């Protein structure tokens, strides 16, 4: 499906699967997404392939009625590295993985498998922080409309998802940078000038979002444009929690996030550090960009 000249459809969906208590729920979530996008589902498992492991996998797939329905990629090595390599080799568009809402302090700084995938994946990533064996359709979607190279892709993907899921609302969140206003307002503006400047800034931001939305079809979905001010990322999480959203859609970070960004968090690092709900990090690969 072509949204705003951006091919937002996921053709191949990968699932990073381990034999953990949430494995079945994750399989159910990935299966639902694959059906929704009519995509091929590929399972990626990092671990030594032997009869006992294969048997465990068969049992898992039988329970979810997925046996024989999907390709399984077996890899050995460092999980995060192997999962990302497998995604690249299999040309996966969307990688599904599970993650805790929040890691402990050591894991936060060292980086868990799920967090490394969020930060470094070269494709889109769907992170389920509370997967269910009987997943429900997504109804409340929040999309981050911060200036980024992936902003159009993120909004288009959110609109497409909302259309497929019949979600009534999409909340498009954009940050209002008040830094300049606070600084220059001091002893420089009258109250009226201050309010007018604030209104003008707000109008400019809303117009910027509306311009993007005008190119993206969203026939049955109502759009709520929400301006937030404060630390971007942090305020976004607060809004998502307030709305009790099912899914937060964000564009991939423009540059790779490192340990430094975890020590001095900003933007998406706030989201990655403490997931407010399920997360979709949109990063449509260049070769797909603009193609039908």
């Amino acid at each position, binding site marked *: 499906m072509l949204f705003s000249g951006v091919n937002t459809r996921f053709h191949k969906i990968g699932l990073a699967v381990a034999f953990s208590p949430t494995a079945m729920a994750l399989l159910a979530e990935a299966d639902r997404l694959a059906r929704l996008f009519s995509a091929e589902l590929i399972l990626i498992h990092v671990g030594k392939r032997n009869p006992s492991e294969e048997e465990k996998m068969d049992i898992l797939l039988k329970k979810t009625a997925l046996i024989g329905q999907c390709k399984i990629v077996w890899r050995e090595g460092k999980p995060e590295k192997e999962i990302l390599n497998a995604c690249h080799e299999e040309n996966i568009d969307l990688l599904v993985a599970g993650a805790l809402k929040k890691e402990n302090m050591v894991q936060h700084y060292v980086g868990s498998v799920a967090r490394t995938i969020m930060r470094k994946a070269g494709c889109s990533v769907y992170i389920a922080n509370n997967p269910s064996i009987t997943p429900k359709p997504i109804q409340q979607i929040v999309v981050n409309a911060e200036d980024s190279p992936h902003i159009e892709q993120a909004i288009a993907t959110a609109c497409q998802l909302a259309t497929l899921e019949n979600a009534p609302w999409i909340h498009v969140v954009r940050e209002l940078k008040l*830094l300049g206003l606070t*600084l*220059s307002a001091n002893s*420089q503006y009258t109250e009226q000038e201050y309010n007018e400047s604030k209104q003008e800034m707000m109008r400019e931001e809303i117009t910027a979002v509306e311009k993007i939305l005008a190119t993206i079809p969203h026939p049955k979905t109502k759009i709520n444009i929400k301006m937030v*001010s404060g630390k971007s990322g942090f305020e976004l999480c607060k809004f998502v929690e307030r709305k009790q959203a099912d899914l937060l859609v964000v564009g991939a970070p423009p540059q790779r996030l490192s340990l430094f960004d975890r020590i001095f*968090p900003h*933007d998406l690092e706030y989201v990655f550090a403490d997931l407010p709900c399920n997360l979709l990090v949109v990063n449509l690969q260049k070769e797909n960009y603009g193609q039908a």
Partner: protein
Amino acid sequence: MGKLSHADVVHLLLQLSIMLLVGRLLAEAARKFKQPAVIGEIIAGIMLGPTVLGMINPEWFQALFPVPSTSATILSGFVQVAVVMLLFIAGLEVDLHIVWQQGRQALGTSLFGLIIPFFIGFIFPYYFPDFFGIADTHQHLVFALFMGTAMAISALPVIVRILMDLNIFKTRMGLLVVTSAMIDDVIGWIIFSVILSMIGKHSGAMSIGYTISVTITFVVVMLTVGRGLINKALPWVNKKMAWPGGVLSLSLALCFLGAALTEFIGIHAIFGAFIIGVALGDSEHFSERAKEIVHQFINNIFAPLFFVSIGLRVNFIVNFDWLLTLTIIVIAFAGKILGSGLGTRLGGFSWRESFAAACGMNARGAMEIILGLVALEYGLINERVFVSLVIMALVTSMSSGPLMKWLLKR
């Protein structure tokens, strides 16, 4: 606690009232001409001080601002607290979030904008210290280092205002200029603190190695552990305490605590306040509204007192040296425009845009005046140099906007 006499109380209250009133009136006049309030406040001080009132009617001036007197000592204490608070809000203005976001691109621009003016500002006073009015010939190197720092620093609020007036604040160039100015300020104040510690006003000079390590340790600890603790405390304060009283009290308590700590370990108090400001301003729990209230409280009460007091303590006519002033202005323009211009050009902008950005970075504003005043109090510079620095700060702040506008319109 000591007690003030009835006359001292009346005197002090009268001084504060006149300073705030005249400062505000002239700040409003400056605003009409689209100039920063600080320009009006400095002129208010010049009019109330020895330069104008002291010349026209010395008796009135002496009656209003008697020196020495108890009220003068207390007023001086007010001004000291005002400087600490001004540096605190300068720290709040440093948005680490934007610095990290833009930092990689802005680092080159800011380093050029820092190193070249610093070098030009250092080299001339180092070889011609007498011309530049060195106050203490034993502090030859320190004096040259100070002059270098004075040329390297920039005034973020003035820059932001100009960028907003030109409607380019949110463009790539606007964010680059703002981020570079923030990085320059942080590095500039670190260098200045090291310089002040090398003079050692109270407890004797510290070795440069010790000073640098103490300063860097303080910065790192405050921006990691300190910031983390603030982040833990603020949600509790926001939830359990009255708003904005709780957050305001905590902010200023931390500001004074940081200032006291740095003064105690031998770095100047203003540096502690600045770094606490950076740490607090970076907390996601310190809301924009809280920041606004702190800004308004300090900018509209303590900042005017400080800037008006500048004119009260120095005679701007007696200490005006046109050749020195002109030289300092030329060095300030040359260093910053060349340095920041080159840095911005390397960031991928055209020469015209690069020089426009450099003109924005050239604004020195209030920060230069604070820097000069601290150096004057430390006996590092004399009143002639101080007056020249204040004039340079005003000229660069007033010319930045029009120059930038002219270059971008061409």
